[in-house]
């Protein structure tokens, strides 16, 4: 069980710092010894910031290690070079293992009244090409890119706009920047710490070469022509995509930098000589010299991992591969760990409250119907059949690892009870049945429901087969329909689909300071009320207005949360929202905390045996800082 303490006391003047300036003796990185001796690279004291981030390992499950080694990983698509930004997880502020937000790249972050953020950089922090990382990089982004109307393809991100207001941006000195709003911005820090981060800075010295304000027009023209782009704006955008991580020339702050020009089947990421994190012994991180990312067919990842072709793998491995992987452990030299996933529900059913069919819309709006559906699902059987009983049965709500958890949220209406479900449906007046036992709708048609799911994963169809049998006992005939993902989503949005199966809450381990927006209609992406969400998202321009009282209450609470002054106030709002959400069962959660298979080479150290595998927060491996993983060189021949 993780310790959960509050990360940011938004109402107080908070200073979050890390260790004071170092008095460490830095050790030169072996990989660069020759270059430093030859004068091609400055010595380590000039490469690491004056006050680097000193990493303390807990001494039990993680210890300081040795530098060196090459890590092989497998990815399913060429664009997965971006995963190195996720795994590298160098962030201005980031989540630690306990999911508290702490400064990382920043030496300090001052937050006043939740609306004034002062960022303190580390003096002497340099980009991966040796150029200084200063407030200029922030100014360049804000003034010359985000708010520059000439750069049409970039605009201030949503997380930086509060009630339509842009922040006031100030550069206080070369290592201090301030963003101020008139109202609190609770989304700012979580977005900065996100798996796909909010970038407030660019490598100005590099990007200026492609910007009309700083480079002569003829040079720009030549570059544009050579790159076959339409204009300088397009080229500027294309070379500067930090998250996409596909440009080897783009300077970075991440622990490993791309050294292979795409397209390629194998991408090599070399260690960043100017990385800002060191261990207590004075060794510069990352420990691992090189990460080799082999791009292969997604479907081959399990069998290749089983063959020992990956040193650290989670992506592409499904739970149903675990038996075969365990079998191959000895021959291929790796260990199979089971981490926990942290979605509110791995799989949930979403009755579409905005479906076009008026008959079904009426049924879905009746809470008794939703509850009957939930009571008619044998979650225990699903858990046993598909997950060996290792997952958690329950609603689509927060998990026990969250401070907001309460068992009654998880267990409401989830105990398999056919009698009770039938009683609810009879209560609704749906008592007419066919000879085979299928109930009839009020208009005389049979109660046949088609549940739609994406073709990408195999589990939904298995789970639905199991549900089909138990729903037959409550008089509902279930049809399965797999569909291509984009077609599926479009049909849900337009109301053509009555019910779909998809993941539940993205963040199942929130603290009170995380946004509860997933529980209220906020975006079209919510499959249970796409049109209401769209209405809110587009501020009334499209979609339908929310017209159910409980959903309206959730919307109101969501708004209140953003304005709540105290953390306790936010917590109260969360609890009320969770209460309403689980009472109303707007989505019917089936199973959560499904184990995630994580394979690690038996020589790789500091990889947690048990941990949480989640996208945001979590960045998959990110919060466990792979820059601190190291190879036990004694047992392994470095190749």
């Amino acid at each position, binding site marked *: 069980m993780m310790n959960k303490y509050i990360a940011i006391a938004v109402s107080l003047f908070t200073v979050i710092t890390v260790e004071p300036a170092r008095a460490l003796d830095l050790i030169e990185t072996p990989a660069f010894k020759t270059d430093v001796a030859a004068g091609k690279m400055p010595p380590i004291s000039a490469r690491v910031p004056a006050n680097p981030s000193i990493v303390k390992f807990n001494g039990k499950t993680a210890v300081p290690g040795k530098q060196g080694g090459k890590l*092989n990983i497998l990815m399913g698509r*060429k664009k997965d070079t971006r995963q190195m930004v996720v795994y590298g997880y160098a962030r201005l502020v980031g989540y630690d293992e306990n999911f508290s937000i702490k400064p990382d790249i920043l030496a300090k972050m001052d937050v006043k009244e939740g609306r004034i953020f002062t960022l303190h950089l580390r003096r002497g922090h340099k980009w991966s090409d040796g150029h200084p990382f200063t407030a200029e990089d922030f100014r360049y982004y804000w003034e010359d890119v985000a708010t520059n109307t000439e750069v*049409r*393809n970039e*605009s201030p*991100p*949503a997380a930086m706009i509060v009630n339509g207001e842009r922040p006031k941006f100030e550069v206080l000195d070369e290592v201090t920047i301030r963003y101020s709003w008139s109202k609190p911005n609770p989304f700012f820090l979580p977005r900065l710490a996100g798996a*796909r981060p909010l970038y407030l800075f660019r490598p100005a010295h590099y990007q200026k070469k492609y910007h009309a304000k700083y480079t002569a027009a003829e040079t720009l023209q030549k570059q544009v022509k050579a790159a*076959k782009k*339409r204009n300088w704006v*397009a080229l500027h955008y*294309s070379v500067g995509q930090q998250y996409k991580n596909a440009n080897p020339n783009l300077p970075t702050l991440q622990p490993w930098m791309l050294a*292979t020009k*795409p*397209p*390629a*089947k*194998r991408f*090599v990421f070399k260690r960043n000589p100017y990385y800002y994190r060191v261990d207590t012994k004075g060794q510069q991180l990352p420990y691992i010299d090189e990460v*080799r990312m*082999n791009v*292969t*067919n997604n*479907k*081959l990842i399990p*069998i*290749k991992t089983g*063959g020992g*072709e990956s040193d650290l793998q989670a992506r592409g491995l499904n739970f149903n591969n675990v038996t075969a992987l365990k079998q191959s452990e000895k021959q291929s030299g790796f260990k199979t760990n089971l981490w926990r996933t942290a979605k509110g529900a791995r799989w949930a059913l979403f009755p579409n409250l905005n479906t076009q069919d008026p008959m079904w819309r009426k049924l879905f709006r009746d809470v008794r119907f939703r509850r009957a559906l939930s009571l008619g699902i044998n979650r225990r059987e699903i858990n046993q059949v598909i997950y060996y009983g290792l997952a958690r049965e329950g609603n689509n709500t927060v998990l026990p690892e969250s401070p907001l958890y309460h068992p009654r949220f998880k267990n409401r209406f989830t105990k398999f009870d056919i009698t009770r479900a039938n009683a609810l449906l009879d209560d609704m007046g749906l008592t007419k049945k066919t000879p085979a036992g299928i109930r009839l709708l009020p208009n005389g048609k049979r109660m046949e429901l088609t549940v739609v799911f*994406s073709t990408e994963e195999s589990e939904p169809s298995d789970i639905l087969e199991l549900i089909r049998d138990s729903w037959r006992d409550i008089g509902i005939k279930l049809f399965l329909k797999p569909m*291509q*993902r*984009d*077609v*599926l*989503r*479009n049909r849900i949005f337009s109301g053509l689909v009555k019910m779909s199966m998809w993941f539940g809450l*993205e963040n199942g381990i929130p603290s009170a300071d995380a946004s509860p927006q997933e529980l209220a209609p906020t975006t079209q*992406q919510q499959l249970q009320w796409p049109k209401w969400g769209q209405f809110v998202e587009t501020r009334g321009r499209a979609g339908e207005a929310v017209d159910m009282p409980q959903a309206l209450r959730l919307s109101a609470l969501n708004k209140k949360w953003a304005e709540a002054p105290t953390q306790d106030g936010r917590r109260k709002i969360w609890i009320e929202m969770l209460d309403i959400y689980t009472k109303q069962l707007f989505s019917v959660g089936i199973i959560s905390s499904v184990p995630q298979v994580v394979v690690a080479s038996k020589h790789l150290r500091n990889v947690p045996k048990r941990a949480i595998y989640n*996208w*945001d927060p979590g960045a998959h491996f990110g919060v466990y800082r792979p820059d601190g993983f190291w190879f036990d060189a004694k047992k392994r021949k470095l*190749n």
Partner: protein
Amino acid sequence: MFNYFVRRILTMLLTLLVVSALVFVIIQLPEGDYLTSYIAELESQGEAVDPQKIAYLKEEFGLDKPIWLQYLSWIGGVVQGDFGRSIEFDLPVTDVIGEVFVFSLILNFSIIIFIYMVAFPIGVYSATHQYSWGDHGLTFIGFIGLATPNFLLALILMFLARKYFGTSIGGLVDPSFENKPWDFAKFMSLLEHLVVPVIVIGTSGTAGMIRRLRANLLDELHKQYVVTARAKGLPEGKLLIKYPLRMALNPFIADIGNLLPQVISGSVIVAVIMDLPTTGPVILDALRSQDMFLAGSFLLFVSLLTVVGMFVSDLLLAVLDPRIRLEGTRE
């Protein structure tokens, strides 16, 4: 002769034009376009999609223009040698295809050699010992490859190769050789990795070849001149080689035209499963994500190969087989 040439070439061009339009339509048939699947992917990962960025991408790739206009601009470019840009890779189509083309050639060339080497002896033996147990047995073996679903065989063989020979799964070279210059070790790795795909893809091609060769040879062997030669005392072996075999080579020549495009596009599924760096997986991805120019240009290219191939086979046949020449064009 010259007139025939010209007419043939004109028809070929016309065919290609129609094919290009058809291909373009086929790519556009599934709902949506490249951006819809791109957006859906982002959304399903919980990433907010910036509508401004989408509008920008739409304009960048001309997806906001009507279909016929997109087609015309593409065809116009093709004629000038510009095959358009791949949305997915953000690179010119020629760059993307060029990377994988060499490997495609190597793979398919090996497969063709394999097919000929296996089909020839089996076909000859089958024909000369018709209805014998040898005939049945060898044909059986030759057909087993055809009968087994490729994708399953590929997976099983890859697994076994890894288990017993340590061959890394998928790809045409061991991952440690990627991005490295060619040397002897890399070449050996290539050969090692060619074994499974060649067997899987080749065995399904041998059956057809055996059948054709056998049928043709049988036809010839029953002809009068063979009976005469035998009666005159020519030894069986010499008899076989001198006359009927030449005629039986007909299908080989006729098939050359067909073989190359078929092998390029016919091995798509196996290439996808085995993650081979050939054109197959690239095209499948392009078709799925509706990366129009990449998919369209490649399909057009394959069609070009087919059409030219048919033309070349016809020519070769005419050269090799005087009967066809002398019989004239019977339209």
